[in-house]
């Protein structure tokens, strides 16, 4: 790890102020992804602002019948909240599909959204990676890219976003609340948080430097069944090959793109009366593979059809 200074933020306002005042500063909450990356010097912050103890860990009902989950709530806490389990079982199940209990106890909800790709070439600092070092090139393009993106990849980057939780949030039409460096609060749909890589894969999100996620807000759950399915190489404690979140009419896919992938074509097809398999086929018209990840297209088609059928079954 490169040397850094550390402070514990006393308030969200002070945190964002410190983030702009100090060069190369980063927020740390749970630290489960940031420290992993700092040890490899993939992340090299010069200053850490610990926001983990800010009073933003509560899960609260909202006026419209939704739920607001504080960004500092641990993943475990969010998954265990009785309201989450009852009204958004998809979210609870997606959270507990990720990491391990120890990681979920430490990782925050905000940090979960900010976690970075698990692409092997991003992690191997001896390899070119545009996400790590803009302009260096992408070793994954011609590499062992079994787990690369099948949607929205670019010539600069074929990495995927690893979060399970974010896939559920995408299907639930969640919104993200932030505090900007100027002290301004804003709120936007989760689908506007993460970016596609295009030519700037070093940027994972649309947040401005120093902007802090303060909460995730769930609207009332959509009508219809909720299903989360994840496929991975080991039964637990492993990143996914693909996942799907179904929430009523909404469908989102995970580990297939640089961001949680809302399957809008599949949704439209379903709304028009398509079968689950037809809907997935429609969505996958837009998919492309990088060489070693061809199977993910077939996998997503089959997993998606099975999950959508399961959701349908629950409705009847």
């Amino acid at each position: 790890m490169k040397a850094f200074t550390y402070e514990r933020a006393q308030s969200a306002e002070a945190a964002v102020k410190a983030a702009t005042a100090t060069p190369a500063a980063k927020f740390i909450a749970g630290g489960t992804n940031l420290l992993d990356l700092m040890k490899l010097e993939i992340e090299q912050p010069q200053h850490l602002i610990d926001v983990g103890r800010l009073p933003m860990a509560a899960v609260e009902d909202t006026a419209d019948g939704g739920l607001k989950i504080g960004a500092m709530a641990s993943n475990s806490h969010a998954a265990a909240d009785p309201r989450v389990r009852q009204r958004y079982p998809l979210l609870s199940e997606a959270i507990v599909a990720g990491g391990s209990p120890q990681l979920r106890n430490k990782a925050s909800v905000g940090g979960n959204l900010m976690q970075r790709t698990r692409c092997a070439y991003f992690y191997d600092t001896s390899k070119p990676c545009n996400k790590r070092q803009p302009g260096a090139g992408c070793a994954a393009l011609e590499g062992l890219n079994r787990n690369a993106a099948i949607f929205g990849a670019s010539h600069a980057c074929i990495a995927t976003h690893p979060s399970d939780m974010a896939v559920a949030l995408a299907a639930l039409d969640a919104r993200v609340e932030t505090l900007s460096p100027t002290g301004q609060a804003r709120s936007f749909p989760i689908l506007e948080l993460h970016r596609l890589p295009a030519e700037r894969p070093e940027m994972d999100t649309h947040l401005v430097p120093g902007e802090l996620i303060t909460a995730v807000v769930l609207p009332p759950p959509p009508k219809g069944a909720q299903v989360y399915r994840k496929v991975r190489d080991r039964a637990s404690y492993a990143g996914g090959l693909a996942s799907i979140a179904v929430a009523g009419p909404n469908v989102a896919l995970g580990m297939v793109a640089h961001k949680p992938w809302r399957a809008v074509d599949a949704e439209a097809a379903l709304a028009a009366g398509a079968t689950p398999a037809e809907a997935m086929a429609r969505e996958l018209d837009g998919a492309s593979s990088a060489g070693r990840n061809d199977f993910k297209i077939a996998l997503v088609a089959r997993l998606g059809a099975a999950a959508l059928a399961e959701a349908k079954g629950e409705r009847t």
Partner: protein
Amino acid sequence: MSSVHDWEAPNPVKTNRSGLIGKAVDRYEGPLKVTGTAPYAYEVEPPSPAAYGVLVTSTVARGRIVAADTAAAEAAPGVLLVWTPFTVPAQAERPAVTDFWSASADPALEDDRVRYFGQAVGLVVADTLENATAAAKLVAFSYEQEPAQLVFDQHLGEARDPPGESDVRVGDFEAAFAAAPVTLEGTWKTPLQNHCQMEPCATTAWWEGDKLTVHTSVQMVRRTQQGLALTLQIPKENVRLLTRYIGGGFGGKGSSYEDLTLAALAARALDRPVKIALTRQQMMTVTIHRPATVMDVKLGATPDGRLTAMSLITTTHCNRRGTFTEHASNFARSLYAAPNRLTGHRLVKLDLPHAGAMRAPGEASGMLSLEVAMDELAEKLGMDPIQLRILNEPEVDPETGKPFSIRQLVRCMKEGAQLFGWDRRLPTPGQVRDGRWLVGFGMAAAIRGNFLLPARCSFFVDAEGVITVRQGMTDIGTGTYTVLAQIAAETLGVPLGAVRVEIGDSELPPAPGSGGQFGAATAGSAALDAGMNLRKAIAELAVADAGSPLFGGRPDQVTFQDGVVAIENRSERLGDLIRRAAPDGLTAQGEIRPAADARNWSQHTYGAHFCEVGVDPVTGETRMRRMLGVFAAGRILNWKTARSQLTGGMIWGVASALTEGNAIDPRYGSLINQDLASYLVPVQADIGELDAIMLDEVDDKANPMGIKGVGELGISGAGAAVANAIYNACGVRVRDYPITPDKLLAGLMAKGM
């Protein structure tokens, strides 16, 4: 030289009068391990605070280091020392030819050559771990790269017979295979695998004058200690090597690595203790791995299922400078009867990290081919796989014609079948569904050789009647401490609480260490001999001591029970005798050597694996639901530790079938899986209900106790049972391990599923 017949006499382990042998005794060192107070090599407290060393590794696969820029690292906070091949202190040269069983110099950072990606090329030592870790990243090497041979599959054509080896032929395989009415032919592939011991290799070293003390994590004490002395060019009596607690070995710590040599050198240079641990990432390349294999199997049979021809040829790889060969065909030489046989190995030299021994080298890979081929042949013949194996059970070793010392493979299969419920298996795949899972059963045989090596041991009895076992042996989780304590207690007739075990120290009587499932038999036999000699010494002491109630009796009539020595109704406590007659205690030495005629028998351990898996035909995911192994491996010393060895091995087999493997990036020569998030060893959730059963057995040709090893038997064949169960579940065969969802999915789709 001795004969196996010398071992026929009764001894306390055989008669087991105190009933300690075979018992489920808790681990001797268990209380320390469950309380976190067993110090592993990096945790030993040196006489003064240690400095921290961190290795730097190469980022090219082959070439020459032309320059090393260490200025930034040397200027970094807290840095005490930076070494590269250009600045490392002089060490002995590496001999041109080395032999695994003899100590040889192993110089670190020995020259400017890079022989594989991730080779240790530098060392940084600093006052704190944080400073050393950060400074290590600042050492910059310039390389002159050379073309490297990296992709095994692309170099199969360059495969040659391993040095000094040639194919073994019996009969006329080619003619018999060509004439066979039923044939089965296939190629199976296994990937490179990493040991992933939980404890990364580590060393703490310090000097007192010209005497070096190293605590390190290795499986072999004496060879490592002598090798270090040779490397450092100092007398071997000046090196004391200790390895008291070892966080897993599995063959990977059969060798030592740069942490050992460099910690010793840096501690000398800095005149203070130095400790070095490899990072998890470095473990993948700095240490050895199990090499990939390509295995060609050919079976010829009569329509009624008798094998007429059998061939297994394995091609594998090692580093350009190495000679290690994964002998994946060897086991097939003794497994099934077939009059015409061909087995052998081919070796490809690559610019990859060093290949070496990993749990059941040979069998672990090899049985993943032949034991699946047998399953496929059984299907072709319309036979039950167990029936096919029973039909081809040999009377004598099918290659050498030697008698088996004892062979209970058929009993393992039959008892296993019954306990597992094999009769519920439907021979046609894809017939059983449980929710989203297709369920199938599979089985496979297990065979693994048994070995005995030379070893010594000493026993000491003190004035309290406490027996101390001393041996330069290791316990890598196998249960050495515990079984030595049991042998001592049983031999001297004392309670387990009156036994101390001291191992893992080069100053103790030498034993070969842990590996090849020879540990318990080898170390234990030397211990038994020491115990017998101590018995004799105590008996002689008692009958010659006028103060003893046993005075004047015959030494051979002295009995040892419950801490009491007696001749009929005359008795006294062992401690009372020693305190009075030999207040400084008594020591006896023991020794075991392989019997001259031991190899007149074909000697193995056997087993049968039964497995139930679920396959999700939608996603290609497999879950091991239930598994049973039934084993015959001589007399069992400790039910608990032996069972744990076997179940642990079985789980390794499950992993080799389902998740484990590494791949090389052909452009760089680096491994794609560099940590435990990407190299997938099983987690708790991968393992369903799983158990191992040990049959009663005594192998009187093995050693004086009739015991054999179990550490590698459990993995042998286990993965094949999983693969066969997958086929039975869903009708897909994947011959390229591991059977991951992507590969299974391709097979399912090809079948229109």
